C-alpha cells in the first residue's frame, strides 16, 4: 500500500466542513420525497433504512414514518448553495457554514527588491 494518496485532495488540511443537521421529526419519509437527494449538485445526502437488529431482515415500506432516514455523510463536498433547504417541503435541513479565515498578502512589493 502506498503511504500517501496519489491525488492531492481538493480540500486543504485543516479546512472546516459545513455542519448539516436534519430534523428527523420533520423529515419522516425521505425515500418517497427524495427532493434534496435529487437536487444536490455534490450528492451530499444519503438515505438509509433503519438498521435495528429486529428489523434487519424485513422489507421496509418507504411510506411509513421513520423506516428510512436521511443523512448527510458527504458534507466535505457541501458548498452551502442552500438548494436543498429551498426544495425541502418540511424545512428539515439546516446548514451551518464554516467560518472563512480571510487571507492577506503581507508584502507590499518590497519582496522584489526595487
Amino acid at each position: 500500500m502506498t503511504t500517501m494518496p496519489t491525488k492531492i485532495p481538493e480540500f486543504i488540511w485543516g479546512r472546516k466542513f459545513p455542519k448539516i443537521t436534519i430534523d428527523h421529526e420533520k423529515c419522516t419519509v425521505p425515500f418517497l420525497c427524495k427532493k434534496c437527494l435529487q437536487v444536490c449538485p455534490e450528492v451530499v445526502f444519503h438515505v438509509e433504512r433503519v438498521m435495528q437488529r429486529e428489523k434487519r431482515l424485513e422489507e421496509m415500506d418507504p411510506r411509513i414514518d421513520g423506516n428510512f432516514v436521511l443523512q448527510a455523510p458527504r458534507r466535505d463536498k457541501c458548498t452551502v448553495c442552500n438548494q436543498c433547504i429551498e426544495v425541502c417541503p418540511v424545512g428539515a435541513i439546516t446548514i451551518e457554514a464554516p467560518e472563512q479565515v480571510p487571507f492577506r498578502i503581507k508584502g507590499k512589493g518590497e519582496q522584489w527588491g526595487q
Partner: protein
Amino acid sequence: MCYLCEQFGNPEYGGGTWYLNPFNYARNMYKLRAPGEGFKGADAGLETGAHSGPTIMDLMNAIECNDVAEYQRIRQIMQEQGQGGQVVPLADADRVLELCSPIGLIACLCRKGVRAIDERNELEYTCMGMGVGMLKWERWPERYKGGTKFVNIDEAKEWNHEMDKRGFCHILMLFGAPFIGGFCQCDYPDCQALRNAVDFGVGTLKSHYLAVVDYDKCNGCGICAQRCQWGALKYEVTSEKPNIDLFKCFGCGLCETGCPRGAISLIRREAVPAVSEVWL
C-alpha cells in the same frame, strides 16, 4: 505487484492475478456463528453502514483537525480490513465472469442510497452479484427488492458490455478479502466505492492497467473525456487531443472502449515505473 495479488494470487491460475484465481470466488461468504450471536456490527450506528471500524467520517474529522498522521492511520486500518476491491477493465471482466458462479443481476445499493432510485426489475438493475451469497438473496427482502435475475456467462458478458457502453466502469467488490462477491457498475459521484477512492484514497485499488493515447490515430472527438469517471482524462485545448494524468488514471478502460478510432490503448501498470506501485 498489488498487495491483493501478492496475498491472494496463484501463479498457476491467471498468472498470479488475484481476481483470476478461482479459489477467491469459492470461499463461503457466511461464517458459522455461535447460536444466539448476532451479526458483527449490528449495534453500529447508522452512519457506519453497519461496518465496525473507522469510517469516512473519521477521515473527515482528521482533515478538519489537520491531523495527517491520524488520516494515514485510519486509511491503513480501512485497507487492512479487506473491504474495497479493484477496478477491472472490460477485457479482464470477461475472464472474471467465466470463473464465478452463480451470477445474478441485482439492484444497486449506492444509487438507492444517494439518489433514492428504486430499481425493481431486471431491466433496471445496475449491479451484479456473484458467488454463493447470491443464493441467499431471499433472506434480505429489502436489499434484494424485486429479486435477483440469475444469468449465464454469455448473458452476464453481454450485460457487462452494455453497461460499459452506457459509461459505467467495473469494480470487483471484496466482501472480506479474498472473497469476491460483487461486480459493481460505477460512476462518480453516485458509487460510494468509487467516490471513496477518488475523494479519500481508500478502498478500491486501481487496475493493473493504464490508458495511453496514440495521438496519430486520435482525431480529437472528445468522447473519451465524457467517459472518464476519475478526473484523469481531460480535453487539452492546446493540442485539441485528450490528456491523461497517469497518477489519477484508474485503468478502467472506459476511454479505450469508447474511442471510435481505437486511439487509446491499455498498457500494463508495471511498464510505467513511477506509477507501477500506485494502487490508491
